């Protein structure tokens, strides 16, 4: 009894620590989820970052100070003859104290409450921003009152809705809706899935998902940073499969989560363990391991190496990175294949390092993305290269021989030695097969060069110890192609063709052939 109920003095320190911890956690949670705890503030999101503005509560109505708005948006405020005039680039809003009507460039709009005075400061209802300031301001202003967000300009901040459904004792589905539609990638790190959205910020409910029970396959969904969600998985988690599907203006991400064994509560658990096969899940779950588990995508050039450049200023390094990111998003989300990018920002990565990333991570496919240039403006179309080795190169078969070497923990092991520069020699046939599959898939969707598949002594392919191709998306030196390549339609088509080629190549490998 004494142990359970210590005297008040002895309890005060742990109690104090607990209170502080809760406050810190609440503060941290609020900062991460961009859902400020009361007293609320309005979070303003722009391309350059975020700022907050204090919200004052008068009754149930939320107000912001007019001088805060003036300094943030560059407004001039003048008070004369009992009216307040707010000017912005020659356009005016006229407000009258005690009236909930305002004149915006001569047109009347209504506000949920009249102006309010707090000492020397004038307060206006938060709706003033969207209803009065929005129509006269240069950039788009979108007020999301429930989440206390104000989007300024062209920022992508989708609303996220998360739903969790237990499909059976051994499987569950997590549905994540992003509106307006936004692409996302799902990656696994032990008992956690990370959903990264290709956006500027997320508009999340707080919490994104109500806490689940200890036996639940998904235990928690929380904001990891401004653009990512973390899905904490329960101890029974064994695998997942994700898919995305556009639904009107929403992008729906579905993650099916599967447990290793049916739980004890399953009524008809057979004595002998059987692989679970819930009818709701795609049949591939119980199938043998895919022959393609990791793909390395190499965004050509980067940093001070801009690569080719179009007349309109489009840079090869930017295009390759944009397409690589898109491809990663779609392949990871739809196929559950791990996709590594040799660079995910604007930096120069040495050619050997690019291949090393693929080799060291045991990638099953290496795709190097580039954009072509020609001295003839007429040159057009995508082309695919696989590696070629001159006859003068050492033979492809067992170029380095086999050596018996001691292993960690005792014993000997045969280690096949392959010279770095010739690693690709053993994969040229499969690289050729992939190049042909990709040509078929690209054929109807993007313009192809007259000879779409070629082989050449390309440096970045020679050291790849897996099937590898270099893809030139088109010609930046052709004005029409430059416009096309930078466009959303081309990139979507290209990535879809790449995705289809990966699926076909994977299926061909699984069936025991690549032709």
């Amino acid at each position, binding site marked *: 009894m004494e142990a359970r109920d210590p005297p008040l003095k002895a309890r005060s320190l742990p109690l104090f620590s607990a209170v502080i911890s809760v406050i810190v956690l609440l503060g941290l949670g609020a900062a991460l989820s961009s859902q400020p705890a009361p007293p609320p503030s309005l979070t303003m999101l722009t391309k350059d970052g975020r700022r907050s503005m204090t919200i004052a509560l008068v009754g149930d109505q939320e107000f912001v100070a007019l001088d805060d708005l003036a300094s943030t948006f560059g407004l001039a405020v003048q008070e004369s003859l009992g009216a307040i005039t707010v000017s912005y680039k020659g356009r005016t809003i006229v407000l009258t104290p005690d009236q909930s009507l305002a004149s915006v460039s001569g047109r009347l709009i209504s506000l949920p409450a009249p102006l309010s005075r707090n000492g020397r400061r004038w307060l206006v209802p938060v709706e003033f921003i969207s209803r009065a300031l929005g129509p006269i301001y240069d950039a788009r202003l979108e007020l999301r009152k429930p989440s206390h967000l104000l989007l300024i300009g062209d920022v992508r901040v989708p609303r996220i809705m998360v739903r969790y459904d237990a499909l059976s004792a051994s499987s569950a589905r997590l549905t994540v809706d992003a509106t307006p539609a936004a692409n996302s990638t799902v990656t696994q790190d032990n008992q956690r899935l990370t959903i990264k959205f290709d956006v500027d910020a997320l508009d999340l409910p707080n919490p994104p998902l109500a806490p689940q029970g200890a036996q639940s396959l998904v235990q928690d969904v929380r904001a990891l940073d401004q653009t990512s969600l973390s899905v904490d998985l329960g101890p029974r988690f064994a695998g997942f499969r994700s898919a995305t599907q556009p639904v009107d203006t929403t992008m729906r991400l579905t993650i099916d989560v599967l447990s290793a064994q049916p739980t004890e509560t399953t009524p008809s658990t057979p004595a002998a363990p059987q692989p679970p096969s819930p009818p709701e899940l795609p049949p591939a779950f119980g199938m043998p391991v895919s022959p393609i588990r990791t793909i390395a995508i190499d965004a*050509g*050039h980067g940093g001070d*190496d801009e*690569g*080719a*450049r179009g007349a309109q200023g489009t840079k*090869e390094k930017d295009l390759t990175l944009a397409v690589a990111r898109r491809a990663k998003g779609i392949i990871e989300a739809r196929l559950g294949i791990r996709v590594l990018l040799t660079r995910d920002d604007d930096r120069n990565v040495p*050619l050997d390092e690019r291949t090393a990333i693929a080799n060291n991570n045991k990638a099953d496919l290496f795709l190097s993305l*580039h*954009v*072509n*240039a*020609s*001295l*003839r*403006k*007429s*040159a057009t179309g995508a*082309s695919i*290269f696989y590696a070629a080795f*001159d*006859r*003068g*190169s050492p033979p492809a078969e067992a170029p380095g021989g086999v050596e018996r070497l001691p292993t960690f923990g005792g014993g000997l092991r045969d280690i096949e030695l392959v010279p770095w*520069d010739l690693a690709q020699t053993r994969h040229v046939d499969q690289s050729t097969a992939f190049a042909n599959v990709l040509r078929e898939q690209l054929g109807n969707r993007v313009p192809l*060069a*007259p*000879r779409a598949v*070629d082989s*050449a*002594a*390309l*440096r*970045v392919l*020679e050291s790849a110890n897996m099937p590898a191709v*270099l893809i*030139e998306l088109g*010609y*930046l*030196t052709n004005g029409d192609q430059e416009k096309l390549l930078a466009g959303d339609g081309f990139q979507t088509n290209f990535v879809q063709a790449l995705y289809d080629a990966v699926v076909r190549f994977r299926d061909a490998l699984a069936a025991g052939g690549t032709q």
Partner: protein
Amino acid sequence: MGRRWLVVGAIALVAGVLVWLMFIALPRRYGATAAKAVSAAPANAPAPPAGRKIKARLFYVAEDGTRLTGVEREIAYGEGTVAQANEIVAAQIAPVAEPLVSAVPPGTTLRALFISDRGDAYVDFSRDMIAAHPGGSTTELLTVYTIVNALTENLPAVHAVQLLVDGKEVDTIAGHVDLRRPLEKNLTWIQ
């Protein structure tokens, strides 16, 4: 008995004369001219008659921009393989007028050229080869095989060509084509 010795002596004498002729007298006479011929090869030899030309096949970017096209041109005659290789490269990298388009970046100059005993030509270009290159795998391939094919196609003694820049080996010109070893003639890049 005496006659037999006489016959043996005569045979020995004839054999001796033959040996002298084959191994000493004749090599001296003809070796001297051969040596003269070899020493005449280097560039400091008397220049060939001014204006002497030979026909060579040079390569330029084809209409579609994705291949090379061969053009027969008259270029200066060079005495010996190295001198002729110099002339071929000089003609190949010289500026050309429309409708011809060269895949070698403008301003590129030839710094040095040498040929190994194995028939590998090493051609050293100025930095412009990299600095003025427009990029792209296809154009880089065309640049490289302009030089490789110009030498291997016109000079049977050259089997492969390695491009150097500023006196050094380079990985690539524009980030694509492996230039770390000599490349053989490749006619797939020619229309």
